């Protein structure tokens, strides 16, 4: 059997958007494995999940919701057991996760429980001679490692924003089953939400990032205003220099000791382009650089550059973007 299990995420009872990418990646892998391989989408939740009925559109043959009272939030040990049991009974050729905060925590546990290696945070997947081959950025994206998995199942997690969701309609038959057992020793007590409307840099389709050129923490306001102009599609990122200086939280850092990101649009503002920063954002689809130093290394990787004072250029850009969304 070479069916593919796509492990999805929900929060507050709704399927998370990154799950559409996981189903898309799983569908692609199933088609590459051939032999009519099916995609089963698996959601763990406390009850019915909103958006599960749309997963057939992205290529899920079947959507299975496993319910347990503890599954209202992430319960690592119970999740691991439920997923590993499902893999063992389902005889899957591959198991696919999102390389999200939860996925990067969960996938290694499931892989270890299955006694299988894990290809974490991959950006491409293919099949040759029946074996799964994946590409993983290493050294923060300064190099790409191509790896073949021997045996089955292959366990993979997909970097967010890389496997663009594609409509590939399949049946998406809905099933639900209750699981029992201990909720586990590790308990999520609460989720403190980030300020309303803020997106995570790892998942945002647009990132507006600032560096030392902003001169002081309060000046990030100009970037927040630009991000806001993108009507909920943009996150504010930061260089290591300004995170180390305490201007911005580590969660916003892009680069080798921060996040490696692949947004559709990356706007680097007042960032010179240190090698460890470039490594973290070079796979962005389009890069714009705004810097007063025309020789800054960031211009070597930018598709479009503006040389000038960011405090004049960025507000003007905000105004123009607002016009588009107006």
């Amino acid at each position, binding site marked *: 059997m070479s069916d593919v299990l796509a492990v999805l995420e929900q929060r507050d009872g709704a399927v*998370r958007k*990154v799950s559409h990418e996981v189903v898309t990646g799983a569908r692609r892998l199933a088609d590459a494995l051939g032999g009519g391989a099916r995609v089963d989408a698996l959601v763990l939740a406390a009850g019915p999940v909103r958006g599960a009925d749309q997963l057939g559109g992205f290529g899920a043959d079947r959507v299975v919701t496993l319910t347990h009272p503890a599954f209202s*939030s992430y319960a*690592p040990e119970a999740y*691991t057991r439920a997923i590993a049991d499902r893999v063992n009974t389902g005889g899957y050729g591959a198991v696919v996760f999102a*390389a*999200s*905060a*939860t996925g*990067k*925590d969960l996938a*290694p546990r499931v892989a*270890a429980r299955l006694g*299988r*290696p*894990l290809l*974490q*945070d991959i950006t491409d997947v293919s099949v040759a001679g029946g074996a799964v*081959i994946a590409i993983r950025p*290493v*050294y923060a*994206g*300064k*190099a790409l*490692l*191509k*790896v*073949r998995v*021997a045996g089955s199942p292959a366990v993979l997690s997909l970097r967010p924003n890389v496997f663009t969701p594609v409509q590939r309609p399949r049946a998406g038959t809905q099933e639900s089953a209750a699981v029992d057992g201990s909720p586990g*020793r*590790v*308990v*999520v007590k*609460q*989720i*403190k*939400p*980030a300020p309303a409307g803020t997106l995570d840099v*790892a*998942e945002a389709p647009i990132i507006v990032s600032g560096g030392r050129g902003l001169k002081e923490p309060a000046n990030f306001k100009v970037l927040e205003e630009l991000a806001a102009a993108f009507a909920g599609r943009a996150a504010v990122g930061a260089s290591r220099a300004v*995170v180390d200086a305490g201007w911005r939280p*580590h*969660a916003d*850092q892009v680069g080798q*000791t*921060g996040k490696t990101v692949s947004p559709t*649009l990356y706007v680097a503002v007042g960032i010179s382009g240190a090698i*460890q920063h470039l490594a973290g954002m070079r796979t962005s689809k*389009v*890069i714009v650089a705004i810097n007063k130093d025309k020789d800054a290394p960031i*211009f070597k990787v930018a598709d*479009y*550059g*503006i040389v*000038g*004072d960011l405090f*004049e250029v960025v507000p003007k850009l905000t105004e*123009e*973007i607002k016009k*588009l969304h107006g």
Partner: protein
Amino acid sequence: MKIAVCIKRVPDSETRVKIAADGKSLDEAGVKFILNPYDEFAVEAALRLKEKAGSGDVVVISLGPAAAQETIRTALAMGADRGVLLQTQGFHPDGLETAKALAAELKGAGFDLILLGKMAIDDYNHQVGPMMAELLDLPCVTTVAQLEIAGDKGTAEREIEGGVEVVEFPLPALLTTDKGLNEPRYPALKGIMAAKKKPLEVKPTAPGPGALEILSLTLPPERQAGKIVGQGSAAVPELVRLLREEAKVL
């Protein structure tokens, strides 16, 4: 409090990657190696917990080549009590095999906490900690950015998309550390001198071959140098036009 910290020797983050002649690995010539930055947070957390408890034992363990003794000495200079090197030859791409080797060393040794960095900045595997927890059947919280230990219970905060998860767990446990947890101390001269005399046990280790085969290591495609649209705010309308009509991202 008995704490084990698993650490790794990695190329410095400013390294310019050159591919070795085999086309599958990093050319290490001229590369400076450091203690993995995420592991520094783990070492620092262990030292603070020991200091707070007033007594304890902080053991640093590394799986790696003979040269990783230097990395262990760095952690000893920060204040760890002793080191163990599980000495290997060659490069091991399969994180599960690394986890198995480390877990075998730590199993049954009675640690209250096992700490690791959330990932290594070379292979980006981001998996050895939770795999070890599964193998050792320990409660585990990854990417910890805030930590409180009280008696045999702990509370940790970890960043997730759009928020922070507050997680409770019993000890013994395994945690992986994220940036923001603490400010790792620099080894003082006194610590560096003391580290030379601290015990460092070297155990030859041969991790299993694993089920992953490296086919190639390549440099990513160079981005084509783009264009300077113009100078100052006057160039903004043209930039927006290009983003819409040429790049089609708006």
